[in-house]
């Protein structure tokens, strides 16, 4: 399905906040051979709805099928490919980094500052840092650490919203 050059799509899905609804979405992707690169989901300000952001790399025909198949799910209220137009995308990363020597502690702190992150937990042997950005920024941060050992990475997956007054709601 996904060719190496296929563009990344960011699909926003408004979903009934019901048991089993998420498994229908995820199941659809595996059932029809589509890939999910990242996925995040949480209830919206209206607790009866969940907002889901899903990224997948595929060509136009496939994303059209994915959108139609998602819309067919009874629990799905709305689907939008926000990567089609102007949009904002952010991802959150929690990263635990080895920081024992004074040099490495300084270097990590400097990198975090440059990338406008925060050190949110400090221990004698490591720092836990929080970074927010699009996916490439988070990749760049890890690359910038060079030889410093990364102990653990937790990424939220992309969240996105369209740059438009029009809101995705009921």
């Amino acid at each position, binding site marked *: 399905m996904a060719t190496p050059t296929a563009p990344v799509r960011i699909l926003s899905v408004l979903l009934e906040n019901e048991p089993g609804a998420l498994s229908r979405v995820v199941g659809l992707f595996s*059932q029809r051979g589509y890939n999910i690169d990242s996925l995040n989901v949480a209830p919206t300000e209206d607790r009866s709805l969940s907002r889901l952001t899903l990224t997948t790399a595929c060509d136009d025909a496939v994303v059209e099928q994915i959108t*139609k*198949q998602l819309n*067919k799910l009874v629990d799905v209220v709305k689907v939008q490919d926000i990567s089609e137009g102007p949009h904002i995308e952010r991802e959150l990363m929690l990263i635990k980094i080895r920081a024992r020597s004074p040099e490495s502690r300084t270097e990590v702190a400097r990198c975090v500052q440059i990338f406008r992150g925060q050190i949110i937990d400090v221990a004698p042997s490591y720092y836990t840092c929080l970074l927010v950005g699009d996916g490439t920024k988070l990749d760049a941060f890890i690359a910038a650490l060079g030889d410093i050992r990364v102990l653990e990475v937790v990424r939220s997956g992309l969240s996105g919203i369209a740059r438009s007054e029009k809101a995705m709601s009921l």
Partner: protein
Amino acid sequence: MADMLSGGDILVRSLQDAGVDILFGYPGGAALHIYDAIFRQQAIRHILVRHEQAATHAADGYARATGRVGTVLVTSGPGATNAITGIATAYMDSIPMVVISGQVMSHLIGADAFQETDMLGISRPVVKHSFMVKRPEDIPAIIARSFYIARTGRPGPVVVDIPKDTTHPHLKVPYTYPEAVQIRSYQPTVRGHAGQIKKAMAAILQAKRPVLYIGGGTVLGNASEPARRLAELLNFPVTNTLMGLGAIAGDDPRNLGMLGMHGTYEANMAMHHADLIISLGARFDDRTTNATEKYCPDATIVHVDIDPASISKTVNAHVPIVGPLDRVVEEMIRLLESSDQRPDPAALEQWWQQCHSWRAQHGLFVRPNHEPSQGSLIKPQDVIKTLYRVTEGDAIITSDVGQHQMFAAQYYHFNRPRQWLNSGGLGTMGYGLPAAMGAQFAYPEATVACVTGEGSIQMCIQELSTCTQYHLPVKIVNLNNQALGMVRQWQDMQYEGRYSESLYEESLPDFVKLAESYGHVGVKITRFEEMEGQMREAFALRDRLVFIDVQVDPAEHVYPMQIATGSMRDMWINKTERT
């Protein structure tokens, strides 16, 4: 004051209020409160099958024959898993069905309890939607929603999983059935886009070599009559998919017959050379397109379907129209009737001459692709032609899957919708007999015949017992070639005749005695000259199930057969000739 009822009684009352008159099922531990509620009422007739797969197929047959929602009740665990094949069959062919499965008690869910299975999980890929009941007071709304979802939009099966404690007789709550169903996240399209319909009409007026390509959606969407009128108004050639047979009468002069892998020569040739294809409720399934990259190279494609996801899924549509078939086609007719513009009649006349000449070359009924039957050599095609004569073309025909299914589709002219019931999408062997039961329950006076083979019939043979219990006079026409015919055909054509696991050797039962042991009538036909007489006698037994075991030529193949990776026109015409 609303009645105070237990969950079991609420379920049964809800089914009554949903309009259910017949329920196919099989009891078991988790469903016993429900079964007790069924025992204490009269409005719904419960049919006890012999295997849960048959319950789903019977409900499916009932749904296809009537257009109503088929309803099934099974227990948890193996009851639920046995139902899966029938649910998947209904899903692939868009058949409205509600399947109620018992579940272990709520507090045991997830504990690997006795007869526990995750029915919602296991059925998820093959249902339109599913529900888990949490409280007895939720049952009426869930049932109302289930039936609404099953029958509207593109129809399909809905599963309702009911933990045993929610149907307990001691837990009573007020009963009210919802007057209307509103689901904010589910709003099927109710009319086609006017602009798109106009675009389609413009394409129609330009057409010189058009084909109306009719699928199962035309039958399911009750659009057969408008589709026929459209064909008549335009004088366009028509072809049906396997699922669309009967939507346009089989003996209508505009009908070129079925298209696809085993479609007629003239239908496949017409499709390949068409400059306009108007698809009504067909989904361009791989068995009807052959290689999509070589598909109908000159054709503009107008695709009308209730399901947007079916449009441009395998073949790109130039004019997509999402909407209910009946309304869209009626709108097309209205536009045609309000204008005197018509497609170029001279071009159409030339196109018809071309279609007639294709039919004259290799039409199934003009130039048979098989040698004649004689003596003990009975050709399966001749069995179907005889069946057609004996039943005067009026029987409801069900089939299983394989060569016999294709012969039935090719040689029985289906002249009305809902006359032909078969598992087209999933290709489920074992479908035919229980589906025939469902149709016979729906129409007790109708002649219902199950065309099957000795392979398929053995996949739900236990239902002969159900037929005994309910005195179902189904006629079983068994094309017995002592082999899995279609598998054997492929092994002939692609594996140099290596019949890997496709022969029964000496293991087949005596079907006559088998039928008799259930209290039915069995007839064995071994000579062509006696076939019609024997079949007439069998069908004259109006109130008996007759198992008609016909010994047919094991070497016969189904033709035409499209050549894989080719275009629509690439076919084997018979064993030695190809296009």
